[in-house]
């Protein structure tokens, strides 16, 4: 295992310490329980946004804490969802009197821990909404699986909702926006190499020299299929077509019903992409792939989108939702409209995403 780390058990803490040391103007880090929060938290009269998930996906989510994006991020152990006490403490720290939106990636662990956290916060009289992102088209079936994983769209939702919170959206409107973004984004990823969980010390899966794993998540989980290694163009085509040709996707999610005071099941649907639609195209690196390669993929993604009459109105290329040092990438397409384009363009000031300020 070749990593710039000290003891495996110190990876999460020391990485957070480094972030705190490097970005004191943007964020602070609370330890035990661990969470990253805006240096100027709480922001009064703004809905606070919290996200979180296992570590090993950096800069997601700590790198997105700051003005115009997240108020706090709760990092779990490597590839392990955070625990409710982290979210509860973070909620107490950053809520500014207008409620808290939790943006949760759809993994059994994340969902359950965020639900427990929400129950605890609600019992303290805080207003909380949990919105789940489940955009990974590699997972086909919602009935016989945990449902689709939350991947690239999460970051886009965090940016867009962060701007909306800045603009004064209330909790209900913000949660609706977040759900809308969630249902309009689709992603698909590929791994060229496995990652190595530090405390395990060996690669999570073995991939031959001329193999790749298509339809992976971001935890070094095996994907849908192992295939012979292909060219960047062929890979881009597989990823984009999986997304663009994905049919309507229905599923049931658990929402907190404020009036009933309990979780209720809600049906939601993602509509397929249609010719002529404006989209944001996001090519994401898995941690071990240099940006030069991501641009080669982006080039083909743009070409295919054009062929499919999808208008790319905004783009993002970089390693934002990673799997430790895995080589590979994912593609996310998000349907846009005037509102979300404006929110995307609004100023953001975080360690990993910054413009306009």
């Amino acid at each position, binding site marked *: 295992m070749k990593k710039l780390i000290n003891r495996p058990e110190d990876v999460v803490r020391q990485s957070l310490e480094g972030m705190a040391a490097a970005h004191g103007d943007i964020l602070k880090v609370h330890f035990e329980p661990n969470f990253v929060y805006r240096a100027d938290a709480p922001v009064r009269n703004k809905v606070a946004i919290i996200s979180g998930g296992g570590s090993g996906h950096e800069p997601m989510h700590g790198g997105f804490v700051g003005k115009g994006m997240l108020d706090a991020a709760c990092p779990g152990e490597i590839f*392990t969802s*955070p625990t*409710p006490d982290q979210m509860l403490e973070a909620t107490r720290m950053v809520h500014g009197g207008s409620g808290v939106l939790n943006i949760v990636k759809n993994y*059994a662990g994340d969902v359950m821990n965020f639900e427990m956290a929400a129950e605890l916060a609600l019992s303290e009289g805080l207003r909380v909404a949990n919105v789940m992102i489940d955009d990974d088209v590699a997972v086909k079936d919602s009935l016989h*699986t945990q449902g689709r994983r939350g991947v690239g769209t999460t970051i886009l939702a965090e940016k867009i909702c962060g701007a909306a919170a800045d603009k004064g959206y209330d909790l209900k409107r913000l949660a609706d926006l977040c759900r809308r973004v969630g249902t309009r984004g689709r992603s698909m990823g590929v791994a060229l190499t496995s990652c190595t969980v530090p405390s*395990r010390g060996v690669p*999570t899966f073995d991939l031959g020299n001329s193999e790749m794993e298509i339809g992976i*998540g971001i935890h070094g*989980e*095996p994907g849908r299929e192992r295939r012979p290694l292909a060219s960047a163009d062929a890979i881009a085509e597989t990823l984009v077509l999986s997304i663009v040709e994905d049919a309507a996707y229905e599923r049931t999610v658990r929402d907190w019903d404020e009036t009933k005071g309990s979780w209720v099941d809600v049906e939601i649907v993602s509509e397929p992409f249609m010719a002529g639609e404006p989209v944001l195209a996001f090519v994401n690196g898995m941690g071990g792939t240099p940006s030069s390669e991501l641009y080669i993929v982006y080039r083909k993604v743009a070409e295919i989108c054009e062929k499919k009459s999808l208008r790319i109105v905004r783009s993002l290329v970089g390693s934002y939702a990673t799997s430790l040092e895995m080589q590979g990438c994912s593609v996310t397409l998000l349907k846009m409209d005037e509102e979300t384009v404006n929110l995307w363009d609004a100023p953001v000031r975080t360690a990993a995403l910054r413009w306009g300020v």
Partner: protein
Amino acid sequence: MRRSEPQLFVGGCDLFTRAHVIRWLSLAGSAIEENKDFLTQLDAAIGDAEHGISMARGFKKVVSQLPTMADKDIGSILKGTGMLLISSVGGASGALYGTLFVKAGNEASGKLMLDVSEMATVLKAGLAGIIERGRAQPGEKTMVDALSPYVEAFCRAGKGGASMAEALEQATVAAEQGVKDTIPMVAQKGRASYLAERSVGHQDPGATSMCLILKALAQAVS
């Protein structure tokens, strides 16, 4: 051949005492620690390669806190264990094991010992907690596939008049079979479900850790 009032003796075979709970958690901690790599390896095949690491982290914490819990009632010990697991394991298993212990603890609130029928109620509450939280039904290749037959077998044995030790023994056998039964299953909950048919042929890590913990329960009273 029953002796006169053996079930009233703390530490006796038909009553489950708080000393048993402490012994159980300590044995479970050792079992998890010993099987840490094995559990992680199972998780690597169909998950994200950390189940053993996460569980070991949690149980280490629990074991380190046992001395401060030993003089509490069973409900408090179980709830305390649940809270420690919730805040240290993370992931699906942190939430699920945490809920199991908290719900079981709620049921055992204030109790210093449990008889077989009380034990059944406590175990059922734990199982119900896991199902409510995770929404997994038996047959979906999860820890429920170890716990559910365990609870069923325990209740059956209890109703048939088995002693605590006997009931736990029989339940353990059912849990072990339950773990084996996960191998041919297609995962439908948790991370392994993403693999769909590719999950077939692999033993579920959560069912495996569950079985280790349940085995320790029988050991604790033996």
